[in-house]
């Protein structure tokens, strides 16, 4: 009886000081490097001989003889106690054991730190041992590979009596024969053993499938993957570190289902990332990027090497906590934290890029002959003499050849990381430079990151993350004059009989035939447009644990982006009579952001009920200021002499905007017995973008999941071991519009001269305010299924979603005006399926084969427009000079609908022609007045995308391949139309002379040469479906090549190695940004090729070294 009471009291006392919880907590975190650390300490043997000295002296001696640092609390350890020691080449663990024998001091090794802590248990155990005559049981705890597990917990079931295994996995504990030992370690299934008569009990632990679950970042917290109720795709660093990735967006492509990534071909160009289709017609469907809890990250400027994991939140139950900013999906980026022994990684690769495909056009001599023929047929003299044609035959001008080059790129990244229980650090640097495949185009990026976190006390954590980047982009063709087509389109339609320079070296900037624009090669060679952006982000992350169940986290983030454009674009010659196409543009923009998030979290388990409650109060603000200087028609030869001393030709501008959001959020997560999961959340946002009456938005969500894993049919099943169903509903918003969208605006656009000399600038209305403006709301229903087979070796997920986006925000032009207004105009529905299947198909000692397949299907439809409207004309205008829209937002169609005439082939001899038409001309569907009927003639939005990523390793060899594909969409090939000539600035036909063209003898459906041409017709709609080998890599890792190098991998890879498509242009995946990019309505208008920068084919050689 007495003993029992004693034990009870002991246990109460013990709870207070019990190390177990603390150990569990940090072992959980450090389990990754535990083995590394113990290896070192295990092997460290030292000799010490000291007489009658304090413990403190002994510890200092150990410090001086080893790399260890010993930490202790002087109130807990009696370091003044005198001892004598005499060890010869003894293991450190044994020395410390002996030193603290019969004291309540235990130690723990964290990498190169030894922490001494008071463990009352240790003391009491001795007492308990004396109290009850017990047997001592010892043994070794090992993992599935029979390797010792240090730090495993061994507890006598039903008591608080327990020990922790030492560095070699050994333990020793006093028990009685009826006791049951419970042996546990993070990531392993807990094992229970009845002691009986045994004195040696060796225990082998098996990995726990469920516990091995990844931790998933879900926004304002984390969750175990198995606990998720929503649709979240995770991309961990591991899945893309096999590929030479310079852009974070590339890491997402094909690896996260439901995410589509459309690359831009220009070095440093923006990639378009879309999550579960496109809801919004405002042009901004960019997902919200949250880096380490701070809003407003830019994937382009991030160093992929810094990334630990990327989580893509897809369904409303996951997104609703981001409220008015979540409707385009959220990408959560977590950057790396160091841990363990200092680790240095160096990665360098060189990339050679080239044009993957040439578009065939007529040769110089053929063009000259064809031109002569058409002139003579029209009664005019020939333009080219026979000798000129002969000269062109021998020395053709191939503008496509002149435009494209082989681009070399370099990428170097270096990172250093490490950490222990107290301090963790990760520092990295990255330098990337890329030459584009179009001459003079370049991109360069430097970045530096420092992530440091410190555990100040058991309760208080502080982290500081800093990231700085500088990017410089030279001559992005999108920033050149594209009024009638990009430089790429110009090169393909340029007069092939005209050299770039005449015999005196003067640039021939204009041609009288073929393309009426400026010589694209002369323009690129003589221009220099440099956009550079410096970005600095810093955030402090402070965590305080009031109790183990109640935590507070404060995230304070500040960011600054300074962007500078120095642009000198020279299209004409200074000697031209009205040299007005040499422009100098100097502009600066500065964006500052701040964010403060306060997060309170409380979680508790009651028996089988687990509850987790989160509350957030958060506010953010952003301010943008810009100024610029512009002068046109300057005669100077370079940028820095831009003052042309003529104020009337110089423009100065200043502007800016400001916005803010205040938010409150509550989330409750509950699960019963790890089987039934419920999540509910609500976020309240107040946004400055809307007037007071429409400012506050409520974004609720609810989700439910049920895991069958505890049911007998799964527990007993050797094949199927995870089955979970999920369903959720929620609402999110989109407020991605200009900060001043609700206000009236004027712009200083009206210029006139009353006296013939002095320019007066008047104000004209440019935007009509809309006080009724409110965010668009997306309601999303999601149902999903997760299935795991063969101990988690094969996992599959299937999600169905139905998203309805109402109150679509649109920057529209008021009918009958050129005044903009932001309006809530209608409704878009996205329905679809996300599917992923991943598996470790083969797992041998020497050979492994992993593969992941993701697939997304999306059906997009505009279901409503505001009353009285059936359609809204799109903002991608034709390049033939007519400014007619190429796309349309129309009820019943997808957002990617193309507008144009329907092409019916050719007019044949003998038919009754309408006025102005002859046999061999193109025929279109017309109305009763003979006018072309404009209708929806195609859709640029893929309905199905998939990706397949597979990795084989054989011994030290690695082979990785990544294939991605998109089907079910069209491309509006304006480039092909322009090459055919006969419209706008494209006066001559540069397509190949071929037998398929209409002639009186052979009346085909392809119009005659030099027929009038209409670019806005279904003649230029092509199927865009493609399958692309995005990446193929072979690598070899050297193990013990050089001392001091842990591993060295060399690899070779190719990107975009082959493309299977029927598309006749460069690449079906690139779509041009609209020329009038101020409307930037880039999604309603996807798939339009106005001469977009093609995706290069590239080859990479690299080396990656771990020290």
């Amino acid at each position, binding site marked *: 009886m007495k003993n029992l009471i004693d034990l009870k009291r002991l246990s109460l006392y013990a709870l207070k000081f019990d190390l177990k919880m603390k150990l569990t907590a940090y072992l959980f975190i450090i389990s990754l490097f535990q083995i590394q650390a113990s290896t070192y300490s295990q092997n460290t043997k030292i000799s010490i001989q000291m007489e009658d000295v304090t413990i403190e002296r002994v510890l200092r001696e150990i410090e001086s003889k080893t790399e260890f640092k010993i930490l*202790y*609390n002087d109130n807990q350890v009696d370091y003044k106690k005198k001892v004598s020691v005499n060890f010869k080449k003894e293991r450190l663990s044994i020395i410390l054991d002996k030193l603290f024998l019969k004291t309540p001091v235990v130690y723990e090794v964290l990498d190169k730190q030894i922490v001494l802590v008071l463990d009352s248990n240790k003391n009491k155990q001795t007492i308990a041992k004396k109290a009850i005559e017990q047997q001592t049981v010892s043994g070794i705890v090992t993992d599935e590979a029979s390797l010792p597990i240090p730090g495993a917990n061994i507890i006598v079931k039903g008591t608080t009596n327990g020990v922790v295994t030492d560095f070699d996995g050994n333990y020793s504990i006093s028990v009685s024969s009826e006791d049951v030992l419970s042996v546990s370690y993070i990531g392993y299934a807990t094992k229970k053993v009845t002691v009986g008569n045994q004195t040696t009990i060796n225990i082998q632990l098996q990995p726990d499938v469920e516990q091995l679950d990844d931790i998933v970042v879900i926004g304002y917290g984390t969750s175990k993957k198995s606990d998720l109720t929503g649709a979240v795709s995770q991309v961990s660093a591991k899945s893309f570190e096999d590929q030479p990735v310079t852009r974070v967006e590339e890491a997402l492509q094909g690896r996260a289902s439901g995410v589509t990534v459309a690359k831009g071909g220009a070095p440093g160009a923006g990639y378009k990332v879309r999550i579960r289709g496109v809801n919004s017609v405002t042009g901004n469907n960019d997902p919200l990027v949250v880096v380490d809890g701070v809003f407003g990250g830019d994937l382009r400027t991030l160093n992929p090497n810094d990334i630990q994991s990327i989580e893509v939140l897809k369904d409303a139950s996951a997104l609703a906590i981001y409220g008015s900013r979540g409707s385009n999906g959220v990408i959560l980026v977590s950057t790396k934290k160091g841990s363990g022994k200092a680790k240095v990684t160096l990665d360098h690769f060189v990339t050679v890029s080239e044009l993957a495909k040439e578009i065939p056009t007529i040769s110089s001599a053929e063009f000259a002959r064809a031109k002569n023929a058409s002139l003579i047929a029209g009664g005019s003299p020939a333009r080219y003499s026979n000798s000129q044609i002969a000269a062109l035959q021998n020395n053709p001008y191939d503008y496509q050849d002149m435009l494209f080059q082989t681009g070399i790129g370099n990428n170097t990244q270096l990172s250093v990381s490490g950490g222990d229980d107290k301090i963790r650090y990760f520092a990295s640097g990255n330098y990337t430079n890329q030459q584009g495949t179009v001459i003079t185009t370049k991109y360069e990026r430097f970045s530096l990151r420092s992530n440091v976190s410190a555990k100040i006390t058991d*309760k208080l954590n502080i982290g500081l993350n800093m990231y700085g980047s500088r990017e410089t982009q030279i001559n992005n063709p999108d920033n050149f004059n594209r009024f009638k087509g990009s430089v790429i389109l110009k090169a393909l339609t340029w007069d092939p009989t005209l050299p770039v320079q005449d015999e005196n070296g003067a640039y021939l900037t204009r041609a009288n035939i073929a393309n009426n624009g400026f010589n694209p090669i002369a323009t690129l060679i003589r221009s220099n447009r440099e956009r550079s952006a410096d970005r600095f982000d810093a955030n402090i992350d402070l965590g305080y644990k009031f109790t183990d169940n109640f935590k507070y986290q404060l995230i304070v983030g500040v960011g600054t982006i300074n962007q500078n454009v120095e642009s000198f674009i020279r299209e004409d010659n200074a000697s031209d009579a009205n040299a007005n196409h040499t422009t100098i543009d100097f502009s600066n923009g500065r964006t500052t952001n*701040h964010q403060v998030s306060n997060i309170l979290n409380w979680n508790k388990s009651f028996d089988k009920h687990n509850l987790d409650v989160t509350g957030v109060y958060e506010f953010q603000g952003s301010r943008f200021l810009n100024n610029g200087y512009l002068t046109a028609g300057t005669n100077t030869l370079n940028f820095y002499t831009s003052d042309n001393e003529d104020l009337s030709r110089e423009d100065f501008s200043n502007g800016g905007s400001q916005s803010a959001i205040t938010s409150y959020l509550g989330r409750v997560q509950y699960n019963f017995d790890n089987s039934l999961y419920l999540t509910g959340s609500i976020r309240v946002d107040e946004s400055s973008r809307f007037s007071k009456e429409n400012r506050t938005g409520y974004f609720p969500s609810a989700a439910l999941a049920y895991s069958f894993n505890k049911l007998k049919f799964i527990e007993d099943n050797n094949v199927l071991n995870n089955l979970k169903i999920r369903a959720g509903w929620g609402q999110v918003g989109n407020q991605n519009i200009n900060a001043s969208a609700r206000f009236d605006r004027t712009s200083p*656009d009206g*210029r006139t001269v009353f006296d*013939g000399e002095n320019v007066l600038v*008047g104000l004209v209305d440019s935007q009509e305010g809309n006080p009724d403006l409110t965010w668009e709301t997306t309601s999303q229903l999601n149902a999903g299924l997760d299935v795991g087979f063969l101990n988690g070796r094969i996992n599959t997920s299937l999600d169905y979603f139905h998203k309805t986006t109402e109150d679509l925000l649109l920057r529209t032009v008021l009918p009958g005006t050129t005044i903009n207004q932001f309006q809530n105009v209608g409704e878009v529905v996205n329905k679809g399926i996300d599917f992923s299947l991943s598996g470790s198909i083969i797992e041998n000692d020497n050979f492994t084969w992993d593969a992941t397949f993701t697939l997304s299907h999306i059906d997009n439809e505009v279901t409503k427009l505001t009353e009285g409207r059936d359609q809204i004309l799109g903002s991608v205008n034709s390049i033939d000079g007519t400014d007619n829209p190429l796309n349309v937002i129309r009820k019943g169609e997808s957002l990617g609908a193309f507008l144009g005439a329907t092409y019916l082939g050719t007019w044949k001899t003998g038919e009754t022609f309408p006025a102005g038409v002859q046999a061999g001309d193109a025929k279109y569907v017309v109305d009763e007045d003979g006018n072309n009927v404009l209708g929806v003639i195609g859709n640029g939005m893929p309905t199905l995308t998939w990706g397949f990523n597979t990795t084989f390793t054989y011994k030290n060899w690695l082979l990785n391949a990544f294939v991605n594909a998109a089907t079910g969409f069209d491309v509006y090939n304006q480039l092909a139309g322009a090459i055919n000539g006969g419209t706008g600035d494209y006066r001559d036909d540069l397509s190949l002379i071929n037998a398929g063209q209409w002639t009186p003898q052979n009346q085909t459906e392809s119009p005659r040469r030099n027929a009038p041409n209409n670019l806005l017709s279904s003649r230029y709609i092509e199927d865009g479906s493609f399958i692309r080998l995005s990446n193929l890599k072979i690598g070899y890792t050297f193990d013990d090549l050089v001392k001091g190098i842990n591993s060295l991998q060399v690899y070779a890879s190719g990107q975009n190695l082959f493309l299977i498509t029927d598309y006749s242009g460069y690449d079906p995946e690139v779509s041009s940004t609209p020329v009038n990019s101020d409307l930037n309505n880039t999604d309603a208008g996807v798939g339009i090729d106005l001469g977009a920068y093609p995706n290069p084919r590239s080859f990479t050689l690299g080396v990656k070294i771990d020290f």
Partner: protein
Amino acid sequence: MKKYRKIFKNKNFMVILAITMSSILLFNSCADLDPDPVEFDLPPGTYGSVSELDNAIIGVYGQLTNAAKWTTFHAPSWAGDDITTHAESNKADFREFDQRNVAVTNGRLLSNWDAIFNIVNTANSILVRSEGLIGLGVDPEKVNRLIGEVYFLRGLAFFHAARVHGKIPLPLTRLPDPNIGLSEVVDVFAQIESDFLEAELRLPDVYPGIMPGAVRPNKGSAKSLLSRLYMHWAGFPLKDASKYASAANKAKEVIDNSGTYNFGLVEDLEDLWKLENRFNDESVFTMSYCGDCGFDTANLKNSILGLPGDFDGWQETFAEIRFFEDFPAGARKEATYRTDLDWQNFTDQKNPVFKKVTGPAGDLPAGAFMTGRSDFYMRYAEVLLIYAEASGRSGSVTPEAWDALNMIRRRAAGLPYATPDAGADLTTGDIAELAFEERKWEFAGEYLRWFDLVRMERVDQALTRRDDSGVLNESNTIIGSLGTDNYFSPIPAAVIEANPNLGN
């Protein structure tokens, strides 16, 4: 070690936490949900001062300059028998007019439509916003004058569009009704008349402090345009013959007060097209440009736009061959065409060249396309000829009417216009037809001829004559109908797409 233990023990941490929490509340003021919008260029609901109104009116002029600086502004005039364009090249939009085969997708038509309704919308916005100025105690005369200008510009914009399309919408509210329909031509003309009458009422006799030639309109400018309006009202399609008397009356008012309005004829017609004379009394409303101030404010219609490829010209505006050959020889023909050029032997397209477009040889910089040449939107010569023609058609011919006609004839012959000359003067015959014929030659290449042919329903006659072979054939043959069914241009397809109520 000691340090953090202390913090922990002394519970200083709680203090830090408290500070943090309170600083969060301080920070909260940074999340300003009502930023000051006026910090960035936002307009007031109503004007608070005359200078705001002034600024806004300069904005309308800016829109007019932006529209009128391009040949696009006059593209429909390529339909006349006086102007043609290159047979190939990127001139398809002009060719469609020239060949009477205008597509609903014609880009020039669309640009013009947008440009004209920009002017209308801004004018409407000003009229609404300026209401707040009344009673503010600001200079009422100046406000009145400025408002008069707005009416003038709106009337001009409506008129410019109505001549091309016939039926147009008439938005008069600050923002147009998105579902607005087309108004009947009679209502359109009534609105234009009303705008010009408002302008006439409010504008001064001479706009203070401006260059000669009414760079900003005066009473006389409004009257002159009214007389032009009445000529069209009396002709096709409304054919309200009573308006000839109105036209004659308005023209007469201008003639009688020409001294008050500073209007008159220049002595030598050739001088009119010289850069140095870009501001002159003959223009009753001038659009002014600056050739050296860049793209935005330069005139982009002249010089190399009228030259053939042989001179590195852009061959946009050529003269028709038949018209050139029929043109009576004399000083006016010399002032109208570059007779020094051997157009029949050009290697590129063979058409005569307008001096009115290229300027007299050597007057404009070689190869220039941006010039400071003014547009004489309406010349005093037209007021005189309207008076002569309208007098005839309204049956109230006076000696002043004959004198008006004869002044133009004398100058055309290279004689002093004010001195009667028996060799040039006419005193008998059908003065209306004589004046109509005189207009043909006097305003050749000034984008007026097509609209004269329309109002008199003489398109068929004139364009059939155009295609009578001269020394050489015209390049751009007529494709479309020459009947009244094809007089007006269609409403652009994109406009109808945006608002089906504007369907043709």
